[in-house]
Each structure stands twice: as C-alpha cells, then as structure tokens.
C-alpha cells in the first residue's frame, strides 16, 4: 500500500497511526479500498449490495484492535459508506474509526458514514472516532456520521468522538437501544470556528432493566460558529440516564442545548445538565496573576477543557 505525505498526515491526525497498523484494518482512500488485513478472530468483508464493509468479531475475542480510517483528498468527492460491526458475545475490542479530509480544491468534499453496531451479550467495545479537516482550498469539508447502536444484555460500549479542527459542517446522529444491564458511555468533544456548524443528535432508548447511559458533550464554539446539541433519552424500564452538555462560547459563537428526557417507567431515573457560557472571568484573572497574558490564559483554559 502506497500513501503519500498528505495521506499519512491525515492518518496520524485521525487515528494516531505512524505506519500501517498491526492488527485488523481497512483503509478507505478517496472512496476506494487502499488496504485491508484480517486476523483469526476479526474478519472484514466488502458489502455486495451497497458501498461499505462488514466487520465481524468472533465471540470471546479479547484485546484486539480494528482500525478503519477513511481519508479524502480529492476535491468534489461525495463518499457514502455503510459499515456494520458484528461483535460476538463476550468479546472485548477496540475500534478506531475516523475521517480526515484534505480539500485543496474549490469543490465540496463530503463523507457520510453510516455505522451500525450489533454488540453481543456481555461484549465490551471501545469505539474511538476522530474527525479532522484541512486543506488550503475554498471547498467545504462536510462530515455527516450516523451511528446506530444495539447492545445486547450485559454488553457495553464507550464511544469517544472528537472533532477539533477544520470540519465546516457536521450533522451527527447517534441512536442506541440498550437491553438489560447494557451500558453506553458517549464522550464527545467538539470545537468549531469560523462559520462552521455542528449538530449532534443523540437518541438513546433504555429498553432493558438496569440499563444505563451517560452522554457527555464538551464543546467550544468560536468566532461565528454555531452548535446544536440534542439529547433525547427514553427510560422504558428500571434504568438510569444522564446527559451533560458543557459548552464555552467565544466571540460571536452560539450554542443551543436541547435535552429531552422521557421517563416511561416509574423506576427510570433521568438527569440532564447543561452549562453554556463564556470563559469565567475569574479563571482568566487567576491565570493572569500567574503571569499569563489574557490570550495565553484563554488558550490554557480551552486546551484544558477539551483535553
């Protein structure tokens, strides 16, 4: 597999990859397969009915990692993929996805990934997803990921997603259904600047007894960017749900937080917390008393917040 400097740079940004990964992987480059590896426990199969792949993890697989990065460097490309993850019972794996766009041209580059997770009984998944855009072109960089999650009894998923730089517009939809004792943790970090727009739409259904979900979003909206955070949790059984939106606005940035909690069962316990505001003046002052300028203080606070 041959990847140029720009492409290796994107891989490093989104997946922390310095070289071709060791374990199972599938690299998608400008809408085409650029490289794939499977292991005894993890199979990757190209779909026949639509673009995309099936990632099949055998029951009981422990300690393996799958990398499925997507990179786009052609301007004007609109890439749509369907990826299905079948995680066998009792498996414990890490999945690193992500999309990097380098748009050097004047046309719009877009990647829409539709990821469906079918997580088996007592299986554990850590799913890390990073979105990144760069390029000197005037073309827009657009990412619209959809994540559909079904977690069987006792299973768990932790989803960590970050979009820190360079994506002009994103509309992220995450839908999850949890069976008995299943847990879902989502940690999302978003920073928007310029005229960017980011929408996050969570809908979690706590179907099974003692299921639980934590959705945590930390975001910074700078310049004239706008973010919209929707989190809907349905407690249909004895269950616990917690959503948290913590946002800093800077310049003329704006943020809307829209929680919706549906407690449909007497033992459902649902909490929503939202805090939106500019950087607290006293935080800036404290750092300035340590010798930092106002701008340096602001940087420290922003970096800490998104760390």
């Amino acid at each position, binding site marked *: 597999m041959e990847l140029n400097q720009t492409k290796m740079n994107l891989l490093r940004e989104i997946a922390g990859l310095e070289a071709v990964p060791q374990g199972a992987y599938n690299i998608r480059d400008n809408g085409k397969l650029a490289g794939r590896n499977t292991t005894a426990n993890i199979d990757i199969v190209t779909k026949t009915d639509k673009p995309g792949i099936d990632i099949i993890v055998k029951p009981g697989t422990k300690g393996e990692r799958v990398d499925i990065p997507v990179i786009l460097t052609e301007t004007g490309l609109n890439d749509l993929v369907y990826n299905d993850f079948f995680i066998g019972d009792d498996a414990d794996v890490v999945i690193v996805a992500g999309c990097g766009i380098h748009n050097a041209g004047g046309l719009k580059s877009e990647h829409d990934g539709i990821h469906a997770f079918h997580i088996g009984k007592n299986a554990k998944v850590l799913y890390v997803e990073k979105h990144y855009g760069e390029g000197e072109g005037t073309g827009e960089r657009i990412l619209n990921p959809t994540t559909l999650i079904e977690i069987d009894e006792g299973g768990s998923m932790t989803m960590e997603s970050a979009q820190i730089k360079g994506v002009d517009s994103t509309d992220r939809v995450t839908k999850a259904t949890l069976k008995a004792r299943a847990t879902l943790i989502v940690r999302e970090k978003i920073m928007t600047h310029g005229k960017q727009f980011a929408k996050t739409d969570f809908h979690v259904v706590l179907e099974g007894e003692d299921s639980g979900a934590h959705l945590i979003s930390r975001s910074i909206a700078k310049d004239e960017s706008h973010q919209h955070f929707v989190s809907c949790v349905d407690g249909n059984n004895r269950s616990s749900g917690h959503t948290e939106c913590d946002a800093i606005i800077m310049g003329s940035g704006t943020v809307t937080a829209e929680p919706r909690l549906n407690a449909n069962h007497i033992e459902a316990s649902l909490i929503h917390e939202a805090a939106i505001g500019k950087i607290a003046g006293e935080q800036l002052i*404290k*750092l300035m008393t*340590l*010798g*930092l300028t106002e701008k340096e203080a602001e940087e*420290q606070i922003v970096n*800490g*917040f998104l760390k």
Partner: protein
Amino acid sequence: MLELRNISFSAEEDGSGKEILKDVNLKMDERFIAFTGPNGGGKSTLARIIMGIVKPTSGRIFFDGQDITDLSITERANLGISFAFQQPVKFKGITVSDLIHLAAGKKLSFGEVCEYLSEVGLCAREYVNREVNASLSGGELKRIEIAVTLARGSRFTVFDEPEAGIDLWSFNSLITVFERLSKKTAGSILIISHQERILNIADRIVVISGGRIVKDGTKDEILPDLMTGSFACRALEKKEEA
C-alpha cells in the same frame, strides 16, 4: 517596597456609589505584614487593588518606586507580585501540575512539584494529576492555591486568609511554612488573617475597618488591644471565641 497613596474605592450599588475604601495610605517594607479587621472591612478589596484585579477610584500604587497604578494584572505578576485568593478558582481540565508549572513559568521535575505540594501537606502522588475542579474539597483547593502561589516565588506575595478551611493539625505546619518563607524571602509577605497565631509571627499588623486603617503597629502594640476588642472588631472577637 509597596506603597499605597490615597487609595479610595467606590462600587456602584443601585445607582449610588458605595465607598469601600477611604483614602488608604500605606508603605510596606517589612518581610511579614498582616492585615486584620472585621468582615467586610475592605482587606480583600485592598489586596485585589494591589494585584490589579480592581482599579482604585482614586490614588496611586508604587512598587519599588515604580508607579504601577495603570499596569495590568499580567504586568504586575511579571514584576513580582502574586496573590493567593480567599476563594480559590476552579477549572475544568486543568490539573494541579498544570497550575504549578504555569506559576513557576518553567518545566519542573516531579520532585520539584512534589516539594511545593508537601509544603502544604499534600501528597504529590495523589494530587499532581487531579483536576483543579469542584471534586476537590474546600481545604484541598485552599492548599493547592497556596502551593501554586509559593511556586511563583514572587517578591511581594499576598495570601488572603490562607488558614480558612485548613484543619487544625495542618494549621501548625502552615504556620511553619509562613515562618520559613518570611525568613528566606528576599521580599515581603502580606497575609490577611483573623488568626492570632498568624498575627503573632508578623513584623507589623495593620487593622482595617470600615474601609480605613484604624491601627498600624507591631504585634506588641496591636495584639493586646485586639484581644480586648477596643477597636470595632466584634467580628474578629467572635471568630476567636469560636
């Protein structure tokens, strides 16, 4: 080294100005100075004026002869003034180690960070990577605030009620910290305190009440009167009894 000349401060309240400090004149050269006096007397406001967080309505401030009245907080910090807040600030994502490094302004070894933390009785291993957020107890935040201020190594350091919220056992070692600091510092320490044991180690005690300096002298001159309550220090008396 630090001089306040005719400092007055009024805050806007319901359209009318509320006079908080009234023509304060003070020259501080001693190694260890203490401010005391009743709650609401104006001590913290004066400290904020020294650091540049609050601008006086009138009057000038001099540091080593230089007029710093119009300098920013950052500029004063870089000249050698530092300030441990009465109410420490909480952050999200910034760790104890981050703050100590920012304060020191250079890369420190784990041992050096550890030294600042053990000065205030905190075990470095437990605390260096803790976030300075609401999960820390009031006393822990207060100790971290002191450790961070020590890491500045400034020539003029203000501690605003450093003992507040610190348990009795640690209070003794805190006193030792200030005694040591006052011996080895090349500059001055100003402590705002209601505690007799802290006032006892000061070279000079300034009593501030109703926005004015009502008494100024050595501990032998001030402490006996403070204890009998001959100034308007009812709040202080109550605190001492408690």
